[in-house]
């Protein structure tokens, strides 16, 4: 079962960013699957931690491309990134304190984080960067 499916509309036309998007979707689906399968909380936690590291570096790369391309809405997009990282960190802490409610909230939020990110900001970024390719 997959939570998020890669769509061609997700593509930014930058091979590295697209590659990481695909990898992240894979990682999110893995967490989701292990949650659905009622896996040990520790496994889910460590998955979240890896996602935190991966997303951190992914955003760093994406921001680099945005700045290089002179993307006009950089600041807003950057804020979105920071907020998302804060949410992941909060989720990690929540999961550690109370795995059961963590599981419930994570299930609700997981797909939102990324689909919203893709649907709004990255889509606009796509159009902007598209001019350069």
């Amino acid at each position, binding site marked *: 079962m997959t939570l998020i499916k890669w769509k061609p509309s997700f593509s930014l036309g930058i091979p590295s960013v*697209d590659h990481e998007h695909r990898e992240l979707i894979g990682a999110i689906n893995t967490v989701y699957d292990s949650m659905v399968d009622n896996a040990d909380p520790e496994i889910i936690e460590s998955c979240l931690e890896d996602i935190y590291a991966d997303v951190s570096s992914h955003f760093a790369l994406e921001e680099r491309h945005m700045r290089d391309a002179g993307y006009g809405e950089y600041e807003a997009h950057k804020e979105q990134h920071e907020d998302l990282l804060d949410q992941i960190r909060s989720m990690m802490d929540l999961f550690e304190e109370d795995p059961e409610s963590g599981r419930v909230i994570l299930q609700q939020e997981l797909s939102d984080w990324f689909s919203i990110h893709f649907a709004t900001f990255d889509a606009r970024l796509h159009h902007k960067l598209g001019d350069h390719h």
Partner: protein
Amino acid sequence: MTFLGALQKSGRVIFELLRRFLDRGFGSDLNPLNHLGALTIYFFWIVTISGIWLFLFFKTSVSGAYESVEYLTHEQWYLGGVMRSLHRYASDAAVITLALHMIREFVYDRYRGNRWFSWVTGIPLLWMVIPLGITGYWLVWDQLAWYVALTSAELLDWLPIFSDSMARNFLSADVLSDRFFTLMAFVHLIGLPLFLVFGIWLHVLRINGPRINPPRTLMAGSLAAMIVLSFSLPALSQGEVDMTQVPQSLGLDWYYLLVYPLMKTWSPAWVWGLLSGISLLLFVAPWLPPQRTKSVAAVDLDNCNGCARCADDCPFGAITMMERSDGKAYEKEAVVDPSLCMSCAMCVGSCPTATPFRRHSALSPGIDMPDLSAATLREKILEVSKGLAGNRRILVFGCEGHNKAAKLKSRLNGRETATVDIVCMAQLPPSFIDFVLSRDLADGVVLTGCPGGECLYRFGEQWTGLRIERQRDPRLRKRVDADRIALAWQEPWSGLSDIAAVVAALRNSQAVDHIAGQEVDEKISLPSGRGNSWKLPLTVTAYALFMVFVGWLSIWPRYQLIEQNQAMVSLSFSHAGHRIRACLKLTQEELNKLPPNMRKADDCPRERLPVRIAFSSDGTTLYEASRPPTGLWSDGESNVYHRMVIPAGPQKLFIGMVDSDREAGFDYSLEQELDFLPGQHVVVEFDGIAQSFIFKEK
């Protein structure tokens, strides 16, 4: 502590006292001590612009030089005069900032190992700036210029470059030609400045984000201060050159002419020895023991996606982003140049993958320090924090700058405080602070850096501050309570009490009291000494002191050339000694033995005998020498040049010269009674046509 260490330590204490004084007025961002290199370059621009104005009115000739500078100074005092003063005082100020800049890098130990390049490329700049000033004083052609010309020429004559004596050009007015001024003008206006600009470029080449321009406030302030100085103490010429009269004393610009008075008692060889000795010592300084070699940053391609944050943060430009080499779907990868890396570890602090939140996967960031990896750092933090107890636990991070970590430990460590030593504050990724606080390893975190923000690795304080303020990547997460973090930059004279004060303040703040657990808006700040009302007077005082210093050493203390009752005699002539043996007439028989193209009637040796001279006054020998012939084949004239100070009053002078192989007596001599007036300058010349000596009084 080694001698070097003690020297650096005491230098730092002086610097920090000065910094503390200047901080009060300027604030740390505008503290001139943080902009010494940039200020030097700025002064150079002032010198350039004022120099262009002076050049427009300057006449490059013996008679025109002095006159045109006098015109600028007196007729056009409101502009040309000010430009002249600015030209002098900006170049004097440049020597001060340059010297402080160099001393600062030395005392803060920022010149060793891989940092040799910037240090070594700075030394030739000294050798360009000083001659630039010297040739400037020369061009004015006043009495100081005459002294400078004569002494410089005597120095240069010692070098085996010129076969003729250059100093002889400056002994009597009839030998000096306008051509010499054209040459000097070229050296001063084009030659040296061109090399200097190139040298400055080379000097900052390996630095990432060098500060070429000081902050505008400092530019405006120092220019205003120099203009005030220019009006209150205008730069003046010191009288027209009269080569028959020696000035008793001169106002020397000690910033440029410091070694010249040595020439009064030292031989040129010693002066050159001193100068080259100092330069050599400076050149080898980066490689002198104790050597500290550390392993450089290493990139782990499996965790590097080419985001380039490390390349942005590296203070030394050691990281470049190159084409991806491992076939992964990324465009770039970080590559470390080991010869540029100073092992400051700031790149680790900037790497987004360096997050300590990893339970199963290894903590291996895209870039890491082999000597103190991110994973080891996390272990250290976990280990140290285990020993903490109480509900106001503080974890202090100490940087390695100036061996502070050990002292911090003994001073602060206890039940509620523990210290972790790292290379530089900017090595610590903000996620580590998040880790410490959210995992409840401590209740507060104190980050301590080098004195006054004078980071051993340039940007440690800056990057750390910006990351905590969430203005630079990687930012501290917004969910982390910034009130539980305090920055403390140690000041060396305080014996760490300022850091202890910050730790205590943080401990007593309600933010860290996790039992109280209330959100409190309480900022941690160092108790500042004085209010803002002191700022302006202190700034003005600082500028005034600087200008007093600049103006004072530019003419005082006056240099005593000769005493009141003294005069001067110079021996100055060239004369060829006889050939080492007489020419031989070859017989026809001998000629026949030679190849046809080499047959000549006379067989003359090329080599000449040395010329011996004796000079005495009232029977006391003042100078006695045997001067060798010049030329590669020892076939040239012998040069005689010697300048000496004699008492004024009537005396019988005698000069004798031998140019043959005779043992006793002289081939040429002259004895004459002269009455020396105080300060009178007499030149002893040899007239080659009349074959006789002259005591030239006029």
